[in-house]
């Protein structure tokens, strides 16, 4: 990545690997090499223990009990919210909504906008979006008669900024783009995207699923209206995610789901809704998940998210240089600003065949369209192989990966 990451300390990879029990196993007879981090990251024992301890010693339902355990559980859960608030530098804890994940967060916002849009209004997304940042907006358009516009991309997998400027108008009500592309690793110029959208009064939602684990995100500096991510891609548990929304926007949106915790008063005639953030958190939440996310935030903050990003960046360059020496690798997504994701094909080989043969050698990569079919259609390919790195990966693992690729290619050609 060329955005200068200010790393102040080098990651001690061997030491951090000790925190991840899952990494110390053999798969198909070889030590596991886990390069599928963009799909989901592994969990450090600090996160696993936080969840386990919660269930062992602290579990109770939150927000309503007067007894000690309930108060403790509530405190832990709300502390986790505070950690996420600090992590994103959000102004207020009530602007942090716990959801099921990135997809859940986007659907919450898309659902809320149903009441704010009218036929002819426009929503802008980009070519680089994950299906979860496409489909909810298409459904919103179907409900409201709004129109979906798409920022095109170039061969390198970068958004064509001039085209975005042309799409913007007073009709634009919402812009939803990712910070980092999951399929190609492109880092999008979201600061510019946000600033420009605001000139037209449009709200901006940033899908941060692939960014928060790689570099520092400051929602105030970005001036993002909504910023969403999943815990499981940030070394936390599955089934929990975050919606940051500016208070003024969250107050404009109606509740997403009805139930307990989101109400102030209920009679059969009329229900009044609770205040933020509870208005959007109906029902007993994923308490352990929230606490696990809090532990994951602590973990990554201790390492320093920019230190993490700097090491991943080093791995990215090391891997790309090595892969180039094979002479048969076609790279997809060669943006100047890029996170540690490599999408590629081997000449003459189907990605599924290569993926299966890598798996036989203990190497986990992703194959397929990565939930980004428009990008694959753009390149006129059915899918790619994707290797994505985390701070716990090593250069030795990349060397093994290169040997495994060579072997797979030899077997297939």
């Amino acid at each position: 990545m060329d955005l200068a990451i200010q790393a102040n300390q080098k990651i001690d990879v061997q030491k951090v690997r000790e925190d991840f029990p899952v990494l110390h196993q053999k798969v198909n007879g070889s030590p596991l090499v886990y390069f599928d981090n963009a799909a989901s990251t592994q969990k450090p024992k600090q996160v696993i223990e936080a969840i386990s301890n919660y269930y062992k010693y602290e579990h109770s339902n939150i927000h309503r009990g007067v007894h000690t355990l309930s108060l403790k559980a509530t405190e832990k859960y709300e502390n986790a919210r505070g950690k996420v608030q600090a992590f994103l530098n959000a102004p207020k804890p009530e602007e942090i909504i716990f959801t099921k994940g990135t997809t859940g967060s986007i659907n919450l916002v898309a659902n809320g906008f149903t009441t704010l849009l009218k036929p002819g209004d426009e929503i802008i997304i980009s070519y680089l979006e994950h299906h979860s940042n496409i489909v909810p907006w298409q459904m919103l358009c179907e409900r409201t008669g709004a129109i979906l516009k798409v920022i095109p991309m170039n061969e390198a997998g970068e958004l064509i900024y001039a085209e975005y400027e042309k799409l913007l108008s007073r009709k634009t009500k919402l812009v939803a783009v990712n910070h980092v592309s999951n399929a190609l690793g492109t880092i999008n110029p979201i600061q510019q995207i946000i600033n420009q959208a605001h000139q037209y009064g449009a709200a901006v939602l940033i899908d941060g699923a692939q960014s928060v684990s790689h570099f520092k995100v400051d929602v105030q500096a970005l001036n993002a209206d909504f910023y969403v991510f999943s815990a499981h891609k940030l070394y936390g548990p599955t089934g929990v995610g975050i919606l940051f929304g500016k208070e003024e926007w969250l107050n404009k949106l109606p509740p997403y789901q009805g139930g307990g915790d989101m109400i102030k008063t209920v009679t059969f005639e009329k229900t009044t809704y609770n205040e933020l953030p509870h208005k959007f958190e109906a029902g007993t939440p994923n308490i352990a998940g929230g606490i696990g996310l809090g532990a994951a935030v602590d973990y990554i903050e201790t390492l320093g998210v920019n230190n993490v990003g700097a090491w991943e960046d080093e791995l990215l360059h090391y891997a790309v240089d090595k892969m180039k020496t094979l002479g048969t690798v076609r790279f997809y997504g060669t943006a100047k600003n890029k996170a540690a994701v490599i999408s590629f094909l081997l000449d003459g080989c189907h990605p599924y065949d290569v993926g299966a043969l890598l798996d036989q050698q203990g190497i986990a990569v992703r194959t397929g369209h990565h939930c980004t079919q428009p990008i694959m259609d753009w390149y006129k390919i059915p899918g790619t192989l994707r290797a994505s790195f985390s701070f716990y990966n090593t250069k030795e693992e990349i060397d093994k990966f290169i040997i495994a690729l060579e072997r797979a290619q030899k077997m297939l050609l």
Partner: protein
Amino acid sequence: MTIKEKEEEVIEEFSFFEDWMAKYEYIIDLGKNLNGYPPEQKTPENIIKGCQSQVWLHAYMDGEKLIYKADSDALISKGLISLLVGVLSDQTPADILSNKLKFIEEIGLNEHLSPNRSNGLSSMIKTMKAYAIAFSK
């Protein structure tokens, strides 16, 4: 040869392989050598759902026997469907339906193939059996 006999043949063939590479090289070779899929049958309707790669399956009756033809854009999938075609093609629909295949497990493909592919394998068998039901009288 009956389906059982053909299965035994495959199991014996695989018993000689000492490591995963030999096994996969064999499957890949099977894939490379599977020819004769009628081009006009390469239709979207003939694609087996549930496979990560594209696998086409076409079936027709030749007298009493059901004939399968298959193709795939990925070599390993093509090798796998080639194994299935080798065992199940040219048998009566009744025999195809009454035999529970055991060779996949015995040659260790269930455990060694990733879940997606394993699902692909079961989708292949399901589709082949569906044809057998359709052609049963």
